[in-house]
């Protein structure tokens, strides 16, 4: 039954993709329906008139788009059901499908870990399918055909779900490639812009290099085992060197997809150019699938984790978290900023996962379960709020036709609902108490503080430093999202477009983000719900759960023990409401002190214009100065001088370019190396047929010699 709903989720998303292909088949469809009615049920008049009405030329595209998204939404609902059912049932379900290689049918395995990520995908897909119909309406059919968008969205979701179900390396790679290639087409959807094509190609390139590395990782495992099924790979008996090699390969492959510094460069290129609901899926969900792959590979297939791997993950995670948020801080492009912020959040997840590995390898499985809980919880939270923020960014782009936050401002009055939803997202991602982001961060700190149980002195001093880096990351994230919300929604409009913006009319476009915002708040107040689910996952995978997650009662969150740390969001909420309510009531009771509106005071200077407001680059200027080494900053100030002896400044031109260090340091040398190598190889390609015949002859002789 559980498996059936999982299959339903996969098939429905596939069907939604196929249905999108019917976009240009209206004639055929109406012919088929005519034929069907004549042959079969001629009596049902209502049904017939309903179908005919929807097949009319004007209504058909709208109807079809809605149908596609309804199927996608249903797929999401089934994924949620399947995920919850398997998590609560605590079972492992296996199955085989007669697809794939003749001697290797597709093995299916649906356990707690897959179920948890099914839940993540399901929620995200539900939100996106509520949002989608309104968003795709702006695309002109002849420029951006819906058939392509719908087909690849369906395939993309199918691929992600299949990755989670896979129980052999072969099916895993097929599904993985389906996911990568489908998302490549989605990134390249608006291909008329050369920058988008370049971004898409970069994405494809990195996805394929990553996939190769994963295949090699599986290959290392498979060479020590009897087959390609995960069961066989689990049995593989690796020496610690080979296990480490497999780990490094898997880390490279999955890390490339997840966006770990320094292999993150595709993220900030690809996410801004895809349609917003696709970037929401890619950033919120696809990165999590990469995380799933890594967890499956390390904790499940490799089995015995080594503490050195944990240290590698911890360091990489810390670097990614700090690097991601520092780069995000400097971005004026909203979607690019969000993409960099994904790098940060994935970094946090990797960091905590590294802690979990360190505890696991040092024989503290319960603390490992705590770290694992924090990592998965943060993955879940990130999926919620990053999806929310990307969908919000989509609404803003839809209404203002801008992505540059320096061109926005004052939208809180024009788009009150969007701004409230976006505020929830910003508060969650800045990990403020009462919202979900805070809970996972709190758990991460609690994990790091358990370092006293370790024997290794280096680890004991390394982990608190990482925790302090996490604190810095959180504080920078708060600064970053104060900037985002403050510049987009507050202040005065900085451009005509944002002055004329108004609230989005499509209810679905608000319903999708509202669903996610509601979940962000609900889970922030009642985190026990998700913690209970994750405990089942860690029970299956690590064979240990948290010691007493409900020692104080369900209101409290006490992951280690009640004496060590506890947090009770419902009580905090009650306290906050009490305090705010009392002072609100007390201070506003006198009618003499009713609020009065007046002109902005501004220290009495007057003449305030929108151009006097702080912009993105001025807001982040102190950071730019303090952390100057982190970026390649190219700041140019040019003055137009005029008058006698060039004394007066007529205009000042300011240019600021901020670049990632990884391009000149890592990628350009590699690209140059490849080019040089190609040039060397090019020397033997003379273009002369006789030379080529000579090569063939030499090869033939060589091969004959080898055979004999």
């Amino acid at each position, binding site marked *: 039954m559980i498996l059936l709903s999982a299959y339903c989720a996969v098939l429905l998303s596939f069907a939604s993709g196929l249905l999108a292909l019917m976009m240009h088949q209206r004639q055929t469809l109406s012919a088929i329906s005519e034929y069907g009615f004549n042959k079969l049920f001629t009596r049902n008049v209502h049904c017939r008139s309903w179908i005919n009405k929807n097949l009319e030329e004007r209504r058909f595209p709208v109807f079809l788009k809605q149908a596609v998204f309804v199927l996608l939404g249903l797929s999401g609902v089934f994924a949620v059901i399947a995920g919850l059912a398997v998590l609560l049932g605590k079972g492992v379900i296996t199955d085989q499908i007669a697809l794939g290689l003749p001697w290797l049918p597709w093995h299916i395995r649906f356990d707690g870990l897959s179920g948890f990520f099914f839940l993540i995908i399901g929620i995200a897909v539900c939100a996106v399918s509520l949002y989608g119909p309104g968003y795709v309406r702006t695309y002109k059919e002849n420029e951006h055909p819906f058939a392509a968008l719908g087909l690849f969205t369906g395939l993309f979701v199918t691929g992600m779900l299949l990755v989670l179900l896979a129980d052999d390396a072969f099916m895993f790679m097929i599904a993985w490639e389906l996911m990568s290639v489908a998302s490549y087409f989605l990134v390249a959807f608006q291909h008329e812009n050369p920058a988008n094509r370049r971004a898409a190609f970069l994405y494809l390139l990195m996805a394929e290099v990553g996939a190769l590395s994963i295949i090699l990782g599986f290959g290392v495992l498979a060479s020590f085992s009897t087959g390609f099924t995960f069961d066989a790979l689990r049995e593989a008996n690796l020496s610690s060197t080979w296990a480490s090699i497999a780990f490094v390969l898997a880390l490279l492959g999955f890390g490339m997809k997840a966006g770990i510094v320094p292999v993150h460069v595709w993220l900030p290129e690809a996410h801004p150019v895809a349609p917003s609901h696709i970037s929401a899926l890619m950033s919120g969900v696809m990165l999590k699938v990469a995380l799933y792959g890594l967890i499956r590979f390390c904790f499940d297939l490799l089995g015995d984790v080594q503490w050195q791997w944990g240290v590698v993950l911890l360091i990489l995670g810390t670097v990614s978290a700090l690097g991601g948020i520092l780069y995000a801080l400097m971005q004026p492009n909203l979607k690019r900023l969000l993409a960099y912020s994904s790098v940060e959040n994935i970094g946090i997840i990797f960091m905590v996962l590294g802690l979990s590995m360190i505890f696991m390898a040092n024989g503290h499985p319960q603390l490992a379960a705590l770290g694992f809980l924090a990592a998965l919880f943060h993955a879940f939270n990130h999926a919620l709020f990053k999806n929310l923020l990307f969908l919000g960014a989509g609404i803003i782009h839809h209404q203002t036709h801008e992505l540059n936050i320096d061109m926005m401002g004052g939208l809180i009055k024009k788009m009150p609902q969007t701004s409230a939803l976006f505020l929830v997202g910003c508060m969650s991602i800045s990990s403020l108490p009462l919202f979900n982001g805070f809970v996972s961060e709190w758990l991460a700190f609690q994990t790091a*503080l358990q370092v006293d149980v370790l024997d290794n002195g280096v680890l004991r001093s390394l982990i608190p430093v990482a925790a302090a880096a996490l604190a810095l990351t959180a*504080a920078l994230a708060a600064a970053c999202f104060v900037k985002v919300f403050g510049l987009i929604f*507050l202040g005065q409009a900085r451009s005509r477009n944002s002055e004329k913006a108004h609230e989005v009319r499509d209810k679905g476009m608000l319903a999708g983000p509202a669903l996610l915002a509601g979940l962000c708040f609900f889970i922030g107040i009642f985190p026990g719900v998700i913690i209970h689910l994750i405990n089942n996952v860690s029970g299956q995978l690590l064979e240990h759960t948290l010691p007493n997650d409900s020692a104080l009662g369900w209101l409290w969150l006490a992951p280690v023990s009640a004496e060590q740390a506890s947090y009770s969001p419902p009580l905090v909420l009650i306290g906050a409401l009490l305090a705010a309510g009392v002072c609100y009531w007390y201070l506003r009771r006198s009618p003499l*002190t009713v609020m009065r509106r007046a002109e902005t*005071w501004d220290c009495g200077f007057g003449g305030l214009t929108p151009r006097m407001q702080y912009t993105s680059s001025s807001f982040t200027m*102190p950071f730019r100065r303090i952390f100057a080494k982190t970026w390649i900053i190219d700041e140019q100030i040019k003055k137009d001088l005029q008058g006698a002896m060039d004394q007066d400044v007529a205009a000042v031109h300011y240019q600021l370019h901020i670049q990632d260090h990884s391009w000149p340091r890592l990628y350009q040398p590699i690209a140059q190396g490849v080019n040089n190598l190609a040039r060397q190889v090019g020397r033997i390609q003379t273009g002369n047929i006789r030379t080529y015949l000579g090569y063939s002859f030499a090869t033939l002789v060589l091969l004959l010699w080898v055979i004999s």
Partner: protein
Amino acid sequence: MNWLIAILQTTLFVVLAPLLAGWLKMCKCHLQNRKAPSLLQPYRDLLKLTHKQPVVSEQASWLFIAAPYLIFSATVLAASVVPLIAVNLPTSASADVIVMVGFFAFARFFLALAGLDIGTAFGGMGSSREMTISSLAEPAMLMAIFTLTMTASTTNLSGAIAHVLNEGLILRPSFVFALFALILVAIAETGRIPVDNPATHLELTMIHEAMILEYSGRHLALIEWASQLKLMLYGVLIANIFLPWGIAETFDAKDLGYGLLAIIGKLALLAIFLAIAETLVAKMRLFRVQEYLSFAYLLGLLGMLSHIILEASR
């Protein structure tokens, strides 16, 4: 009963905060050969502000009006977590020290947004600077706090204080480092000299004041009160974590009375030190604050390392 005492303690916290500000001002005036205002002047100022009609800019959105209430209640919640006169109160179980830092972040988030809401250059400047300084101060603060929590192996403030009480007076190098780190952070976070000067409105230097320029009436009162509360909160943190003696461990009236007297005495002493420091030290340039805060971080790190190397059980 316990909840009642907890609520009472929080109320006491809120009520006493302006008194501390008045006392601090008094000490400073005496040190600078000025005539001091009455000890109760901050109360009078707050009362005056609540009786005035608040004037709000036409540009302001709902966030600007809601922010003072949010800031105040977040600070009150932070205060409810910190043991003032007694330990083992139920409120400290509902939130630990990391949540307390979270409450500060919550208040700061809305303060910075309120600064950006009107769209003045001053507001943006204040928000930008505040977020910069706080993002540097937060790791330093957590480093100092982690040193403490690792020694006491709990992040519950009440539990940590009880641990220090039970251990008795032991000179721990880690605590000395952490104390200094926390003092430096406290000065930065509460906007005192040398990081920020609460008594000035000079445009080049102001941070906290720049964000709240547009506030008036009860909104201003709430924000002022919240910042007084924050000052007292850091004072209580420093006094009660590092010198917890005197705090009530049982809930009978005598112990609570002694607890109250002890904390008033400790805070009065701390305020005198702060006043002397503020009189002797000049305000720093904004871009030297990073050096100051990285020094605080370094102290916290040293504290942590000395805990790990010198004091930990193995």
